[in-house]
């Protein structure tokens, strides 16, 4: 009955171990709703016009990916970082600075396939250094430090003319053309954005069940115990910032291609907080949450103006609607829209199971 002997003898458990990775690792595979969403996203250019394709869906996917990087840190690591938009903005600036733009005195004119890896590398380094500062603190202090980094970057871009071109920013940023395709044309760009967002989404979902992601969730639940199991907790946290920075950097590259310009307004403190709102409204417990939050945010931002004008209010009050929606969701569901959805699904399932009795617990 020795414990460690049992650990070696007891090797074959085919039934339970075999099904675990497939089913629990990729919950989407068994979810018909996920397949429907995937198909709709793939055939979107057939249904939506250019405005919807880019202004609504591509923008949602870009913002959602930035919020995904926050979800990765906050949902799995318990670290609320307000600098994820700043990192995306930094990557966007770097694409403009190293690549080709209308500001020839600033841009170095590298081809996009050199400028983009450079921008991603620098953004990852930037975010990792910021993370290394932030992991020395917990809770509200992490929020304060990352917000301070975001605010400092915003004011720096406003005042620095040599690299960031001050408050006018960098305009007419070139977008990639190759294989005879203008990749910023609506339909190709939509697919570039969709592919990047899907890559980030599945990467986050995959990592969440890999040793690194599990350890990150362990750090979230009980950092002290993680140290008592042999983990270097701070190193794990910094590594999580590196991953999140890379994801945010990818979204930043897409953002600068989307608008073809980048200016301090895009990295303002308000925009940093928007990312937090997006992630919380959607739900930070699962990677799909940030995308749902981003869709709600973009729809409100785009249509609330017309709606408010129609009912006789000032159109610029669309933030009021977002704020009220945020309040309502946080009040009713601490894990956002997906939390509401999951609870509704569970109540449905419970009602179905009631006559036959619930599943047994082995």
């Amino acid at each position: 009955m020795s414990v460690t002997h049992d650990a070696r003898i007891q090797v074959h458990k085919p039934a339970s171990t075999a099904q675990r990775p497939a089913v629990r690792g990729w919950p989407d595979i068994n979810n018909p709703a996920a397949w429907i969403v995937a198909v709709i996203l793939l055939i979107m250019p057939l249904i939506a016009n250019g405005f919807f394709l880019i202004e609504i869906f591509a923008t949602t996917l870009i913002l959602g990916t930035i919020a995904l990087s926050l979800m990765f840190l906050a949902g799995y690591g318990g670290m609320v970082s307000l600098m994820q938009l700043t990192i995306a903005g930094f990557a966007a600036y770097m694409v403009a600075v190293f690549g080709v733009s209308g500001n020839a005195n600033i841009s170095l004119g590298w081809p996009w396939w050199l400028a983009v890896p450079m921008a991603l590398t620098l953004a990852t380094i930037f975010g990792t250094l910021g993370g290394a500062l932030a992991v020395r603190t917990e809770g509200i202090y992490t929020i304060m430090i990352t917000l301070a980094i975001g605010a400092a970057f915003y004011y720096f871009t406003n005042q620095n003319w040599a690299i960031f071109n001050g408050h006018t920013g960098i305009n007419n940023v070139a977008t990639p053309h190759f294989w005879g395709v203008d990749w910023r044309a609506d339909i190709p760009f939509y697919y570039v954005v969709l592919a990047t967002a899907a890559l980030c989404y599945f990467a986050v979902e995959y990592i969440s069940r890999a040793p690194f992601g599990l350890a990150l969730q362990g750090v979230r639940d009980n950092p002290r115990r993680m140290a008592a199991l042999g983990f270097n907790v701070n190193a794990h946290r910094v590594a999580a910032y590196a991953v999140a920075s890379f994801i945010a950097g990818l979204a930043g590259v897409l953002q600068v291609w989307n608008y073809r310009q980048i200016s301090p307004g895009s990295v303002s403190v308000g925009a940093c907080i928007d990312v937090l709102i997006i992630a919380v409204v959607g739900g930070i417990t699962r990677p799909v949450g940030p995308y749902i939050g981003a869709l709600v945010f973009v729809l409100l931002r785009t249509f609330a103006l017309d709606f408010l004008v129609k009912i006789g209010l000032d159109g610029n009050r669309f933030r009021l609607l977002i704020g009220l929606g945020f309040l309502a969701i946080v009040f009713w569901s601490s894990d956002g829209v997906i939390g509401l959805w999951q609870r509704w699904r569970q109540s449905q399932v419970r009602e179905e199971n009631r006559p036959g009795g619930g599943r047994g617990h082995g």
Partner: protein
Amino acid sequence: MDSVAQRLSAVGAGAALELRGVTRLFGALAALTDVTITVRPGERRAVLGSNGAGKTTLFNCITGDFPPSSGTIRFFGEDVTHFPPYERIRRGLRRTYQISALFPGLTVQDNVYLACRGVSRGRFSFLRPGQNDALMHAADGLVQAVHLTGVKDQRVAELAHGQQRQLEIALALAGAPRFVLFDEPAAGLSPTERVELVEILTSLPPHIGYIIIEHDMDVALRVVESVTMMHNGRIFKEGLPQEIQSAPEVQELYLGGGHE
């Protein structure tokens, strides 16, 4: 006691754990004062004392959760006084917590898997474990050893108290432990669960030594061969379980009275 002597001689000489003059201050309060203890490899020892005697602080100094204010700590001859906790754990030290310190958002299996991963390579791996992953199998074995196989896919937050205490022990036995610190493992367990606990402790492989903090003398004295008594952050008596059980100080400590 012959088997104990055989077991200890088999694991060799030297000290598993050697504390010299360890003191820990919290502000002006001395939680530990000049504690010197030597524990041989494979030795099993109980630390007894009233609340506030410094028992858990002693554990925290040994694992590095709080570094000592002065003194040195050696683990199998190596000076680990200034090592962070994870470096000590990777060298074969383990501990459990008085109040279960688990990962409530993860399943039982994932908790134990993390414990196995923490003391092996690939802590930062981005690759999911495959179906024949050795650590996954090791985790399965540990889950079974503490009788939790039936609930291994449940989230820890949903477990009963007794099950959480058993998981607490499983986490401390992952990998190749050389020395374990058990902090009140029987706290809140039912009489049946206490019997299981004694069985788990006595059936540990002989080379694994431990220190156990335990208020239940029935559990504590049945699973150790030596006892250290602490009071007000100091050691005031060391001896065999039989000696300690009949000592007047112990009678006083556990059967009412108690020094203030």
